[in-house]
């Protein structure tokens, strides 16, 4: 119960008493983090599945909605996030080498790239706001959107069909904002984790024996990157050539 800790062997301060070794402790932490990330993957996976099913049901509306979002901004954001994954991987490597200053530099770089991502996302959201594409009670209450006009003029839809398809794009935008919003929320949690890692690194505690918090923070950050790797093609790309037949 309250026996004092064994003093026969050197005891690393980070090693919890229920583990035999730091290596076993790290393996357990990695497994636990992956178990958590898999539940996250199933949550986003449910949204992906729902998106694909609704895309079949309201195909023309999803094509119209998808071609209305800014593909260049989405692609640049993909590159920014991939860059942040690289700096995160290098941060973990620095932690493993015990290079605390390099670690802090790469964590700050990761956060800055994440900030650029959210800034670009904000520009995209603002664009949708200006175009009256935000789903909700006032959707379609500001007169015909540019989408409805394009459907008539470029796709040669009848006014009635164009109005109906334009109305259904609200479902696409529900998915767009739910999925990118949930993703952006995960980025904010990522910032919290990065701040925590910066705080932890003050004590120069990370080194070859122990850098598990940085490794787990990295897993989380890369997971958020993976979600975006799928969001980008699904939301921005796969419908690009399908309009204006």
């Amino acid at each position, binding site marked *: 119960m309250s026996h004092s800790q064994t003093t026969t062997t050197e005891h690393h301060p980070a090693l919890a008493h229920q583990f035999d070794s730091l*290596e076993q402790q790290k393996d357990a932490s990695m*497994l636990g983090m992956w178990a958590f990330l898999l539940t996250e993957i199933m949550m986003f996976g449910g949204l992906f599945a729902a998106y694909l099913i609704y895309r079949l049901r309201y195909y023309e509306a999803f094509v119209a909605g998808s071609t209305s979002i800014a593909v260049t901004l989405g692609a640049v954001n993909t590159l920014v996030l991939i860059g942040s994954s*690289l700096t995160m*991987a290098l941060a973990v*490597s620095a932690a493993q080498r015990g290079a605390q200053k390099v670690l802090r530099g790469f964590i700050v770089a990761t956060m800055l790239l994440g900030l650029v991502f959210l800034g670009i996302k904000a520009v995209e959201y603002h664009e949708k706001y200006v175009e009256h594409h935000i789903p909700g009670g006032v959707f379609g209450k500001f007169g015909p959107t540019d989408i409805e006009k394009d459907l008539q003029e470029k796709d040669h839809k009848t006014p009635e069909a164009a109005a109906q398809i334009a109305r259904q794009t609200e479902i696409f935008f529900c998915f767009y904002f739910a999925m990118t919003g949930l993703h952006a929320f995960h980025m904010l949690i990522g910032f919290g984790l990065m701040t925590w890692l910066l705080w932890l690194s003050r004590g120069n505690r990370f080194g070859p024996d122990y850098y598990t918090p940085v490794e787990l923070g990295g*897993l989380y950050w890369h997971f958020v990157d993976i979600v975006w790797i799928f969001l980008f093609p699904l939301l921005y*790309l*796969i419908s690009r*050539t399908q309009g204006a037949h």
Partner: protein
Amino acid sequence: MAQNGSHGHPTHGVYYAVFGALVIGTLLTWGVAFVDLGIFNPIVALAIACTKATLVILFFMHVRYSSKLTMITVAAGFFWLMLLISLSLSDYLTRTLTLGQ
């Protein structure tokens, strides 16, 4: 070559190579999106996305260098995700084809 433990991370060269592959994949999927491949547009886009995700998981997330228990857990999770999406879509895709005509 980790046998069971979590020793050994990739070198920085591996990280930069993976980063380069991810950038190329992104540019490729971006460019191909504007080429009309008909039904193959989503397939190509998702194939590239799966390749990119696999690279991130294996190298950035160190699964390639993790314990076998971690590997099998990750694989099981993604298998379950594939079940969710493929079984749901095989239902809805076939319904749409019959009811839509």
